[in-house]
């Protein structure tokens, strides 16, 4: 095989291994962050015993999940019972493969984009998938199967009801989610995530949220639809303990339950990444070109990743903050909110954005 192919394969394997490690560790520590932040909101400490500030708590939790007894009830539909958490986790991780974290980086003389599904073309520019955003939406739609099949294969009334409610909620809010992103698509003229971010270059004022397109309404619709998609408060009735025991993961124990758990937090990370890419300028710094370039090319390639991580951290904090503050919706309130309020509002946003673009183009 030629040198190029070998170098490409090595770079791809390194990127995948790095991303897997970072995402799984991030999910574990988002759980820690959630317990600490919600603890402080509720005027208590959260985990403090295991390690300094409770920082080793996720390690203890991971050990607990691995060492627990893995119970498979008798009358479950075995193949789907085992496959459902696999589908959930696989779908969450595939979404993260498509997300770009920055421009190209040159390590040991090899230039590669900071994205698992990106390649550097002959002039060194990073090239993305043409339909990146659509693939993320498609993969999210397929994620509904993890929940639906988990509840059904558990052969239990509570699990089935919880999974049906969760699937119906997910499908209803997918519409509002997709339509809220159409405004951003019209502004950037492309479904490729890199081109959407490049459209928002130039600092805070040029983001899609502000002068880049004033997509404030679309941003809030996206945020609410994404909260419903990830089954988080205020939309987490399918998982509420007081309602349906534990919803679709009632009959799951130890590692399979942990896979659902990690899938949920990985979905939160994906939502945060998408929100920063589409509305907050991605990896562009809010100061634009005001800061002088310092350090070598490696530092310059990694600073955008730092900005990206800060913005995603803000979204995760927002998720946790809202969880600690708001009560949850009742199921009929939830469904009517999605269909009767968010969907017409998203369509109105598309119409107004198109109208404004047509007028301003004259």
């Amino acid at each position, binding site marked *: 095989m030629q040198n190029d192919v070998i170098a490409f394969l090595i770079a791809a394997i390194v990127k995948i291994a790095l991303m897997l490690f970072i995402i799984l560790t991030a999910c574990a520590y988002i759980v820690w962050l959630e317990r600490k932040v919600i603890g402080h909101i509720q005027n208590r400490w959260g985990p403090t015993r295991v390690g300094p500030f409770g920082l080793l708590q996720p390690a203890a939790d991971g050990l607990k999940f691995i060492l627990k007894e893995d119970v498979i009830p008798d009358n479950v*539909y075995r193949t*789907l019972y085992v496959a459902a958490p696999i589908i959930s986790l696989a779908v969450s991780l595939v979404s993260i493969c498509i997300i770009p974290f920055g421009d190209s980086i040159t390590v040991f003389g090899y230039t590669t984009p900071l994205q698992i599904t990106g390649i550097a073309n002959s002039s060194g520019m990073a090239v993305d998938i*043409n*339909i990146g955003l*659509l*693939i993320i*939406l*498609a*993969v*999210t*739609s*397929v994620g*509904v*199967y993890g929940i*639906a*099949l988990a*509840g*059904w294969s558990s052969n239990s009334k509570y699990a*089935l009801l919880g999974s*049906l409610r969760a*699937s119906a909620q997910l*499908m209803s809010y*997918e519409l509002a989610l997709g339509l809220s992103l159409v405004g951003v698509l019209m502004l950037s*003229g*492309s*479904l490729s995530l890199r081109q959407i971010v490049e459209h928002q270059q130039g600092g805070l004022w040029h983001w899609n949220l502000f002068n880049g397109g004033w997509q404030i309404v679309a941003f809030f619709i996206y945020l609410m639809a994404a909260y419903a998609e990830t089954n988080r408060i205020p939309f987490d009735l399918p998982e509420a303990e007081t309602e349906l025991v534990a919803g679709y993961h009632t009959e799951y124990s130890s590692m399979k339950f942990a896979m659902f758990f990690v899938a949920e937090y990985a979905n939160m990370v994906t939502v945060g990444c998408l929100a920063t890419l589409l509305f907050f300028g991605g990896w562009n710094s809010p100061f634009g070109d005001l800061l002088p370039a310092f350090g070598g090319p490696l530092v310059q390639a990694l600073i955008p990743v730092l900005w990206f991580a800060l913005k995603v951290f803000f979204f995760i904090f927002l998720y946790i903050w809202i969880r600690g503050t708001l009560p949850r919706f009742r199921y009929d309130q939830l469904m009517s909110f999605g269909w009767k309020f968010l969907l017409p509002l998203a369509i109105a946003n598309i119409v107004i954005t198109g109208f404004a673009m047509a007028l301003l183009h004259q």
Partner: protein
Amino acid sequence: MLHYILFFLFAAIALGGALNLLFQRHPINSALSLILVMMSLAVLYLLLGAEFVAAVQILVYAGAIMVLFVFVIMLLNAGEEERSRTSRVAYLAGVPGALAVLGLLLYSVFAHNSNFGSVQLGTYLVSTGALGGLLFRDFLLPFEITSVLILIAIMGAVVLGRRDS
């Protein structure tokens, strides 16, 4: 070369899924096989360069329509099918009929033998913008009529699903 490998692999998966759908007794297995067929069709669209259609195939077919099928199977608690006695006439007339149709299809496909393999991976690439331009300029009337048709279908579903009050 890669084009042939991908095409034959995913065509085989699509055919295998379709056959599995017919031969499975439990409806949930059939539904899952159909999802597999939809996904391999999406890959085949991608091989022809229709990237938007491939993504929308997964989004709509595999991610929404098939979820509906799975919902119905879950809600109606459909169990395994039992083997029943089929009628003799269906067996005597059906099998030769199906073979005749298959023969006709094979003939019409192999009559154009020389065109096989002429579209390679990367020959065409339909950008979403080009597709949108075509849909909203050249084919605007069929597009609008199709939307009205879908609206009528939705209204029909709402009327049928309404409770008699």
